[in-house]
């Protein structure tokens, strides 16, 4: 069984947010519900202030605090290493949001970020909390894995596009979007990344590109001191860095 993981090369990432858009389209996210986000940092002060950015999906931790705290086992870790949410079990207590150090989880019932409220314009039918005019095929929806349009009052998060990767041929070391045979099994953010800053593959396979990159370029995990052991690794070079903290220490 593969242990899926991602490597993001910060030297290549241009902060274009195509990954966020692709994720939103693939997974029918509402404005502000960025399962895949690009965070921006202001470093330094005028005249030498710099704008930095940092792409951040769910870290799909090996030791996920969100899974440990969920009182009803609605959020769980799959055998292939992905943290998912069973929307049929989630009670909406939001303890997992509290316990995630990376801030990657979202509650369905929030005050709308933009007006008019998109959920009231495209009203939900049945269990769905809204009914987007364009959405993934119904056959891809999977309530037990948190894939599709979520019901009211549950928590949602990045699934590594589980509806795609779970159908990948067994034993595949890398889900390379440049390989036409594997493209449809690759997460949307990886497929869309124009500068190819994202790599997706089996962390347990030493021959996979992700394993090689982590070894060669000293792949680093975000907030590693928290002990969550993310399965998303970042590699850097001379002009990029991983924020050591949430880095909102801007002067006010």
């Amino acid at each position, binding site marked *: 069984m593969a242990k899926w993981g991602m490597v993001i090369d910060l030297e290549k990432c241009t902060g274009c947010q195509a990954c966020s858009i692709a994720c939103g389209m693939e997974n029918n996210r509402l404005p502000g519900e960025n399962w895949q986000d690009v965070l921006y940092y202001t470093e330094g002060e005028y005249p030498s202030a710099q704008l930095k950015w940092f792409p951040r999906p769910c870290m799909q931790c090996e030791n996920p605090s969100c899974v*440990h705290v969920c009182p009803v086992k609605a959020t769980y870790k799959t055998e292939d290493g992905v943290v998912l949410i069973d929307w049929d079990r989630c*009670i909406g207590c939001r303890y997992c949001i509290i316990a995630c150090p990376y801030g990657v989880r979202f509650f369905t019932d929030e005050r709308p970020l933009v007006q008019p409220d998109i959920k009231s314009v495209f009203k939900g039918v049945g269990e769905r909390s809204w009914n987007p005019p364009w959405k993934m095929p119904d056959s891809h929806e999977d309530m037990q894995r948190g894939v599709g349009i979520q019901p009211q*009052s549950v928590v949602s998060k990045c699934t590594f596009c589980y509806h795609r990767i779970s159908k990948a041929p067994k034993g595949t070391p890398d889900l390379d979007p440049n390989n036409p045979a594997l493209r449809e099994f690759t997460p949307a953010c990886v497929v869309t990344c124009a500068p190819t800053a994202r790599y997706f593959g089996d962390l347990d396979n030493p021959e996979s590109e992700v394993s090689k990159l982590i070894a060669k370029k000293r792949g680093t995990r975000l907030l590693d001191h928290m*002990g969550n052991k993310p399965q998303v690794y970042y590699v850097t070079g001379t002009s990029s860095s991983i924020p050591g903290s*949430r880095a*909102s220490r801007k002067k006010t």
Partner: protein
Amino acid sequence: MSNILQAVLGTSGKPTQADTVLRYSFAGLVITGVVALGFLLLQGHSAFNSSSMLPWGLPISTYLFLVLTATGLTFVSSFSVVFGFTEFYPVAKRCAWLSIAALIGGFTALGLEIGHPIRMLWTLPTGMQYVSPMFWMGIFYTLYLIFVVLKFQRIHAGDWHSPTSKLLGVAAFTTVVIAHSTLGLVFGMMTMRPLWYDGMISVNFLFMSALSGAALTVFFTYFAYGFKRENMPKDLRTLASEAALPKIFATLLGLGIMMVVDRTITGLWSNLDGFQVYHEMLRSPLWHFAFWIGMVLPFIAMMTPSLQLQPKWQVASAVLGSVAMFVIFYHYVVGGQRVPTFKGAWAPDLIAYTPSLAEWAITLTGLFLMFTIYAVGEKFLNLADAPTHKG
């Protein structure tokens, strides 16, 4: 239904104080409950001002306040029925009933706050997520509610001293201590929330709950007798007239003050990211009201021999102490989330939060429910009862 309401709310003669309290608190419960349910039905949890960046707001701090108060009330009730301090018998039954009322009020606030409370009934036992502190909190508070109801049923039947009654008292006391510890761990285990992360937070909660429980014991004891000591039965009057009660209250206030000061100084001194909330907290007039007027002033009053035995100072200290605990728990719950998690420099330094009308309605529903249940007990269950012999 109307017959039940008539039986509960109606009076055969001149309305007693319990009748009046029951009517007003029931009216308050209906109004706030309708408002809360109206918001939830029409807008869902979008009516809350909490968000994915600050998920737990006023209703959760209300839950924390009420269930910890239930813990404190159980302590006071247990002084006599478990530990044998017989002078506390006159408040034991009332405190046991109040702890049930506070617990149900707290559970109601929590039930209205979470997304799918009914679903919890089957997912909690079938999930068996034993590594989650919230799972154990649910288990032990449920056990505690069962034991305290059974214990109350025993003492209501006049069985204060049988082995079964004593065993139920010990079981209620033990489960509430464990339940409240697990509640502390719900917050204290969160390494990613520096303001909460503290292995000793359960001990902190223990003293805070005792303080809150003692305050409500004093308040409701006077409340039951129209705030007049001369209306009280002899044993209770003796308890209220002696220095022991204010001294216990003052000790708990003193410990509470020490804990608030220690935590605040640690927070102000440390430069750990997340602790800047303490600086913000000190800019809040509400925090200063809670600390100086709600804790320090009652502490001085209860330590001053000329004031500590005066009913008006005892009642005022109890009310102020309770309000202070509510505010302190609110600042604790909300403050722990005000520093955003990994959201980048464009997220606010501190997340702003003001409770919405829906959140206030849930809070008031929980509080009015507690008052309503208390008043039902006062009217029908003879809460002033105490054992005729103190075996």
